[in-house]
């Protein structure tokens, strides 16, 4: 039988939120040549049982959410990045070397319950 799940309002559900990292805010604009900042984003929101079957979530999040619906003591599944992408950074070190480096997993593209 379908288990009645409390209707969570959409905006509280797990999804990607915008977060722009501005290197000037960190005082790093003095050595990072480019980019000036980047859209990193983050994941936040509830993972009720109904969501784990729609959002690209993991199997154990589905089981955990199922258990949580049966036994509220079970912690809820958590909202985590499910797709990440890299960025490249051009910066200068203390030896006047100009360095171009690629960093994996710096931008959150998608979120899911995990």
């Amino acid at each position, binding site marked *: 039988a379908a288990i009645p799940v409390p209707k969570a309002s959409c905006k509280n559900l797990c999804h990607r939120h915008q977060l722009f990292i501005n290197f000037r805010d*960190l*005082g*790093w604009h*003095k*050595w990072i*040549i*480019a*980019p000036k900042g980047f859209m990193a984003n983050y994941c936040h929101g509830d993972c009720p049982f109904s969501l784990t079957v729609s959002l690209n979530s*993991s199997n154990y999040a589905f089981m955990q959410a199922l258990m949580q619906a049966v036994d509220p003591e079970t912690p809820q599944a958590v909202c985590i990045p*499910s*797709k990440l*992408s*890299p*960025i*490249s*950074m*051009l*910066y*200068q*070190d*203390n*030896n*006047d*070397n*100009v*360095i*171009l*480096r*690629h*960093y*994996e997993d710096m*931008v959150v593209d998608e979120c899911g319950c995990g």
Partner: protein
Amino acid sequence: VQFQEYVFLQFLDLDKAPSPQKFQPVPYILKKIFQDREAAATTGVSQDLCYVKELGVRGNVLRFLPDQGFFLYPKKPFQASSCLQKLLYFNLSAIKEREQLTLAQLGLDLGPSSYYNLGPELELALFLVQEPHVWGQFTPKPGKIFALQSVPWPQGALRFNLLDVAKDWNDNPQKNFGLFLEILVKEDRDSGVNFQPEDACTRLRRSLHASLLVVTLNSDQCHPSRKRR
């Protein structure tokens, strides 16, 4: 914030936030690779960050090292037609232990490659310096010759593959005494144009710019691309 900054800098493989006095010009090749990567990221094109297609080598860190050497002004020039002598030195200490060198390209920019203000043909010789430079000694004791080539005007930028030498310097930093560069003016009888070698040499000394582009592969960060779930 101080603590978090330290953690994030560690992640960027930096011991502390650099504090450069002034920004160096960004070399064209790095700018181009950066812009290509930004464009690919914007259009969502998946890319192998551990392969530098513009240079045809694997690697995820590209460093442009400026020359930290100096000009030599010997009383008695090494050879009569000597135009310029310079010790070239590159500090490889920024390369971390677990990084593998996949490219080391010496760039010698001899000035604008324009047909305006042509100068004499040059002969360029590069030697590996195998002993520390003794102050007061005008010319380092050049070791094995590394490259010898004539350079017709206009020159522009010359490139030399220094991978084996850089690997040896990286493995044995105490052996890194740099390179000895000598540029000679070639006698040019049949052109009919009488160049003033001194002017050409003065111009050359002003415009010469040496740099070393190194690419390294950090195996911790360049695992074989795993299939994402």
